[in-house]
């Protein structure tokens, strides 16, 4: 009887924890047949999107480990990656060398922005997510100032295909045709009609191994300690502020590199909008994979990308088949992206309050017990 109750409790906990992925599995299972898309097309699309997005989403894991929640500030890294790509395109460095150069050039920008973001987040402890979200808007303004006014006038941009006709500022779209899918196609492999971006997956695999290794290092352990309890970590001699800044810097640098991989797959940069939604969609994908604000794993990343992007692919077609208007599907998927983040944040906040109230109750009980004990001793005396 006792074991049955334990099993039931375990199953209940599993269902509670996996409610979001289960919901998405159901949505996908309903939408796939309605959409009428062929399995090979669907698998091809999912594999392509995995190559495109996984690196970016992996960049979110380290700040979660350090207890800083979902890093909406990854947008900063994405902007750094875009600036590096614009410069490399203007210098006419093409192919894989162009990509590698863009990655290298994005790093100093990412470090600077990550340091800035980390510094501010240390001042806004406990409100990291909303703060990083607003920082991303602020830096977007700075990015627009640089790209729209400084590039071409202060920062030399030579090519007319990149520069606006007025002589300064960058066009709405910058072509990356000479870099397009170079990494994906470096080791060509097609299995049963499905194109596998082998090299991109190797790069992702290496990053996964680095993350696993990093968790075991001194810095990784420090981050976990900081994530669990900042006060205890500080008492143990860990420089909490520094550790938190490093976690944000690492996340921003990885986001910058991830953005280069993302854009090489796309083949163009939407100069003023590529980065703005990337944070939102990456975070949504991670949450769909079963992650929470304080716990995320590499498995969550992969499951999230598969489920979220399956929904992304099939929703417009399914929407068109059900309502006759594909825009309904478009609205649905945007609605789901925001909804899943909202639900995750509400759940996190509710659990936090519940935990606090439980702790409070326990403390009150303990105090009451001590009071009773004292009274008893007094009475006895």
């Amino acid at each position, binding site marked *: 009887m006792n074991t049955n109750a334990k099993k039931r409790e375990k199953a209940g906990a599993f269902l509670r924890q996996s409610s979001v992925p289960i919901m998405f599995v159901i949505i996908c299972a309903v939408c796939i047949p309605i959409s009428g898309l062929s399995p090979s097309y669907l698998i091809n699309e999912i594999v392509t999107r995995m190559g495109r997005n996984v690196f970016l989403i992996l960049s979110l894991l380290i700040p979660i480990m350090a207890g800083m929640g979902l890093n909406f500030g990854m947008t900063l890294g994405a902007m750094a990656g875009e600036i590096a790509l614009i410069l490399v395109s203007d210098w006419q*460095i093409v192919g894989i060398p162009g990509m590698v*150069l863009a990655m290298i050039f994005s790093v100093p920008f990412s470090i600077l922005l990550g340091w800035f973001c980390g510094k501010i987040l240390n001042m806004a402890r406990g409100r990291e997510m909303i703060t990083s979200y607003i920082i991303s808007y602020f830096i977007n303004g700075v990015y627009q100032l640089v790209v729209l006014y400084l590039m071409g006038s202060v920062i030399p941009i030579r090519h007319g295909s990149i520069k606006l006709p007025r002589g300064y500022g960058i066009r709405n779209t910058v072509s990356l045709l000479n870099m397009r899918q170079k990494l994906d196609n470096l080791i060509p492999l097609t299995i049963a009609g499905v194109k596998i971006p082998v090299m991109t997956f190797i790069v992702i695999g290496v990053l996964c191994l680095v993350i696993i290794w990093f968790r075991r290092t001194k810095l990784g352990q420090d981050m976990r300690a900081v994530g669990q309890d900042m006060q205890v970590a500080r008492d143990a001699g860990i420089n909490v502020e520094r550790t938190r800044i490093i976690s944000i810097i690492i996340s921003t640098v990885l986001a910058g590199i991830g953005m280069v991989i993302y854009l090489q797959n796309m083949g163009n940069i*939407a100069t003023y909008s*590529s980065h*703005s*939604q990337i944070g939102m969609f990456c975070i949504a994908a991670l949450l769909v994979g079963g992650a929470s604000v304080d716990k995320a794993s590499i498995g969550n990343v992969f499951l999230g990308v598969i489920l979220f992007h399956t929904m992304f692919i099939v929703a417009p077609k399914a929407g068109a088949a059900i309502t006759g208007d594909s825009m309904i599907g478009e609205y649905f998927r945007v609605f789901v992206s925001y909804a899943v983040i909202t639900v995750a944040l509400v759940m996190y906040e509710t659990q936090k309050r519940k935990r606090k109230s439980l702790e409070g109750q326990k403390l009150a009980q303990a105090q009451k017990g001590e009071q009773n004990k004292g009274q008893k001793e007094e009475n006895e005396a």
Partner: protein
Amino acid sequence: MKKKRSFIFRLIALALIAALAAWMFLIGRGHTVYFDNKSLTAPDGTAYEPWYQIEILKDGQRVARLKAEDRGMVEVMGQKLTVEVKLAKSKDGKMQGGTIGLELPYNKDGVIYNLPAMLAGAQEEVYMSEFIPTPVEEETEEVVVTDEFVLPSEE
């Protein structure tokens, strides 16, 4: 001692990354190479006449087939280009062939090679020139969209 060692390691890592970036700059420079099969008169008055047909092959694949007064192009990464050239003087003429190795100038995006002059043994400044694109018409100003609530064009 430990601090000094880690500082040296960081310095070495930084130097390696800088060296990698420099190497990428060198090997990744893209050029558009234009091949002309056009008549050309050199500054000294020497006239070079076009061939009936020129075929250009890169890595065994044909990238251009040029009749008289035609222009072909090929995208190149790096500063070296080796192409195989097949030529015919006239319609019934026998095809001749050969391999040409070209050193591309780093600072030029587009380079034009006049093949008749080049094959006739003219000086480099005669057969090679920079391609400077000229705008066909006045471009209208582009409206910049900075609205962050636009969906990314993923599809």
